[in-house]
């Protein structure tokens, strides 16, 4: 009888501990997405075009590899937690197509106790025949992870829901920046923010449907 009570207490304690971690007050205080000022271009893209590197899933961020993940991962030790994808982004205004490459790596300062689990990113966007922009940023994926795990605890599988998450930068990484540009973007200053919307057909996929909001001043 004592063993059963102890085991039950331990189980409830562990669940409580996990809940405490997920609802870490830090995750709310540092969850403010980057503010954007100036003219904002909205560029949409989706996962599914193909990538190489680690899977952008809860397991991938924690260092676990699925069979599919092992096939896409790099064998080089220096690239084990790096990722590259090429995407065609569509501008909301006018529907122009933009070619983009997104290099990312698991955040070097990630820490579960500090509600910090995400990636650092570097973008190169190319408007064919016009110009390019180079972007440097990071994104903290704690909020969709928290909601997805809460959904899993309730037996609904990893499903963060269908709301759009404005992803904040990783604490200490600074605001996502437009580093440089050419053509019409030469000398332009600005910033950007990525929004993530889960795709029901791909549970656990933290790329999902994306919106890159590029602000220029």
């Amino acid at each position, binding site marked *: 009888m004592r063993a059963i009570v102890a085991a*039950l*207490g331990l189980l409830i*304690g562990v669940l409580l501990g996990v809940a405490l971690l997920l609802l870490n007050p830090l995750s709310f205080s540092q969850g403010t997405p980057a503010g954007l000022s100036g003219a904002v271009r909205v560029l949409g893209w989706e996962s599914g075009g193909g990538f190489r590197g680690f899977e952008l899933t809860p397991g991938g961020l924690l260092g676990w590899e699925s069979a599919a993940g092992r096939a896409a991962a790099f064998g080089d030790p220096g*690239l084990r937690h790096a990722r590259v994808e090429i995407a065609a982004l569509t501008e909301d205004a006018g529907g122009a*197509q933009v*070619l983009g490459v997104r290099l990312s790596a698991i955040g070097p300062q990630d820490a579960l106790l500090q509600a910090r689990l995400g990636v650092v990113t570097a973008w190169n966007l190319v408007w*064919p*025949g016009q110009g390019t922009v180079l972007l440097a940023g990071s994104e903290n994926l704690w909020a969709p992870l928290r909601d997805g795990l809460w959904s899993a605890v309730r037996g609904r599988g990893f499903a963060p829901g269908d709301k759009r998450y404005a992803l904040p930068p990783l604490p200490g*990484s600074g605001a996502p920046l437009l580093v*440089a540009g050419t053509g019409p973007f030469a000398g332009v200053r600005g910033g950007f923010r990525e929004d993530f919307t889960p795709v029901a057909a791909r549970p656990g996929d933290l790329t999902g449907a994306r919106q890159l909001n590029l602000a220029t001043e």
Partner: protein
Amino acid sequence: MARLFYACVLVGVVLAVLVAAVYPLPQHTRYRSLINVIPDGGREEVFSMRWPGDRVQPLQSGRGGPVGLMGAAAVLSAADGASASIEVFRLRDAADNVVGLASRSTTSRGGRAQGSDWVLLVPSRGSLFLSQLNSRDVAPASRAAGTAPATAADAAAFWGNARQLRITAGPAAGGAGSVTGGTGEFAGLTGGYDETWDLERVAADGTTSGRITLTTRIRTAP
């Protein structure tokens, strides 16, 4: 019995927090940075990529939407006929260790001048952003009658009798490219760089192999 239950609940909470504190999150493998100090100030760091061995192709055939493949490059064409291409490579340091990823985009920049941007991501150190005008047309194309479109370096016809080509042609002084910014250990740096291609071998079937070298000369931005 109630005391035992609550004690175990407390132990469970502490256990969960402890596991979160010591859980081994992914860490990036770091190689020693190979940097030369330049006599007149700043530092020089050389990165390289081999083709075709270091090429990375993330696009899966037929899944890239409007993005097509020309040889090893992803290509997007606009309605006015202008096009842009992206190539991705494993990035090596001066000791030939694979230390990161590099992407190279190429397009004309208003008018006829063609330029390229490089993004170098070294997971353990940060990102470095480079931009240049090109000394010649390096966009993927068919360079000889009857050949399939390919990236410039891969086409024997592109080389003629040359074995080494300097691709960078500005916009910085001396025809160097510009180091436009960086993050992590590369934050707050500025400077120039050169991109050179070395042809090492032309196979009987016309395919080539060689090395792309990026020689960066950077210093702290004033």
